């Protein structure tokens, strides 16, 4: 087990309280949204991708626990300027490393929600004439507590 100091590090709480690019984003070309119905964490990610496949600007919105929201903020902050290829290479392990504090499997799911949404968002252009697979409100299936 990680200790409390570790998981709610100052830097995590900073992101939670003062998130990077949280809010609506009018210029998005791509977006996706998902939630974990089992704990109520929700993440929406909106991206402006350039013709060459670069993330020009990224925003998120959502609600949920500290881990899900702070990690989303960190992710959004990181990806701007990156190419789609670079995003593709950004693994779940990279996401957990970006977050920092070590997480138990259950909390890793909170941390990886935004990462999963991002992976879908890059394939979800907002232009309806495109090969859009549309917004998808069904979250990843992360099991359920009893």
């Amino acid at each position, binding site marked *: *087990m990680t*200790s*409390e100091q570790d*998981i*709610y590090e*100052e*830097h995590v*709480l*900073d*992101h*939670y*309280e*003062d*998130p*990077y*690019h949280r809010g609506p984003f009018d210029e998005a070309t791509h977006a996706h949204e998902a939630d974990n*119905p*089992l*704990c*109520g*964490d929700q993440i929406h990610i909106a991206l402006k991708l350039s013709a060459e496949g670069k993330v020009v600007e990224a925003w998120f919105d959502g609600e*949920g*626990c*500290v*881990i899900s929201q702070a990690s989303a*903020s960190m992710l959004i*902050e990181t990806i*701007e*300027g990156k190419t789609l290829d670079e995003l593709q290479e950004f693994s779940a392990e990279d996401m957990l490393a970006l977050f920092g504090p070590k997480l138990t499997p259950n*909390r890793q799911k*909170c941390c990886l929600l935004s990462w999963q949404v991002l992976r879908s968002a890059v394939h979800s252009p907002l232009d309806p004439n495109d090969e859009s697979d549309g917004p998808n409100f069904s979250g990843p299936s992360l099991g*359920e*507590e*009893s």
Partner: protein
Amino acid sequence: MPTLTDCRDDFPILQRSMDHGTQLAFLDNAASTQRPVSVIKSITECYETYYANVHRGIHTLSEESTERYEHSRASVANFINAKHDHEVIYTAGATSAINTVAHSWGRQNIGSGDTILLTIAEHHANIVPWQQLATEKGCRIEYLPLQDDLQIETAAVSAALEKWQPKLFAFTAASNVLGTVSPVAQWTALAHQHGSTVLVDAAQAAPHQPLDVQAWDADFIVFSGHKVCGPTGIGVLYGREQLLEAMPPFLGGGGMINRVTTEGFTSAALPDKFEAGTPPIAEAIALEAAVQYISEIGLTEIEQHEQKIARHAETGLRQIEGVRVISPPSGEKTGIVSFVLSHAHSHDVAHSLSERGIAVRAGHHCTMPLHRALGITATTRASFYFYNTREEADRLIQAVDDIQKKFKPTGRRRRRSSGDRS
């Protein structure tokens, strides 16, 4: 004989020390209780000294195991005051038990256009099987809503029964979130007046109050072993004899038949008819030890003790600013206190409590429709049992107070990274 005063010594796990040297305060009993030594020992003893498959083997071990298995049934029948031992069917758990009723009684008796009445506070175990049946049969499901005070008044039950004339009324005897207790005998009598069959989900009632199925007069009653200090892997379906007799078997296999030919089979008599395959033998034997243990402590004593501690916790939590307790302000309740904090998500609360050695659940507790009706996605739930102490309740109150303060917005600023253009 175990007593309330020194029962903690009977539970090895309660002695465990947790992270940062804290002592375990196990307040997750509504999810599953812990087991006393006598229950654990009964499993060990079974496997070490007399275990064999049951089902009327002729050798000594099988005879001993069969006798212990059936003795367990008799004890459980006695525990819930069933008229006949064979009205007690062993299943894999409360969930399996409800599914048994849905598949066997339900598919036989519920048709298109019929209505099943539930309450909005049901556990998914008492919703999803009926939704599955409804999809198959084209029947309708209606939910009794909560009033503003989070209660369901008997007048509302009566009106719903009158309006919907349900074939089945299935409701929980005690909510696993609100801690509220249903007046089972009263609701059952009303339902019977309207010709409804009644299933009572006693998963949260069996651990906490004396059960008397004859006084309740319900048609089906279910509960789980692991919530009454028993083992996992076993639950109880109580069914009224005539109903069980008239129902087709559910699962098919060894033990539940009288005769099998290539053409078909005939069913065994009760209770075997509903116990296909090798049953949970050691689990049944351990369940007997469990109901024996809590009976010796005394269900009435358990109820009173929990009341005291849980209400103490509830009172303390209500006094913390920004804490909202999801429970009626008054009325009969079990040892459950669910709450939300204005500053922290339930997962963060549970996590932070765990750091202090306090085990609670966070989430929707398998009651998504209830949570949606309440307009919340998740709650933190502390659930007390007889081995919990007032001191543990105090630790909870103090910890929640700390956590609420800790996650309070303080005007923090994220360190601006170089790429930040906002």
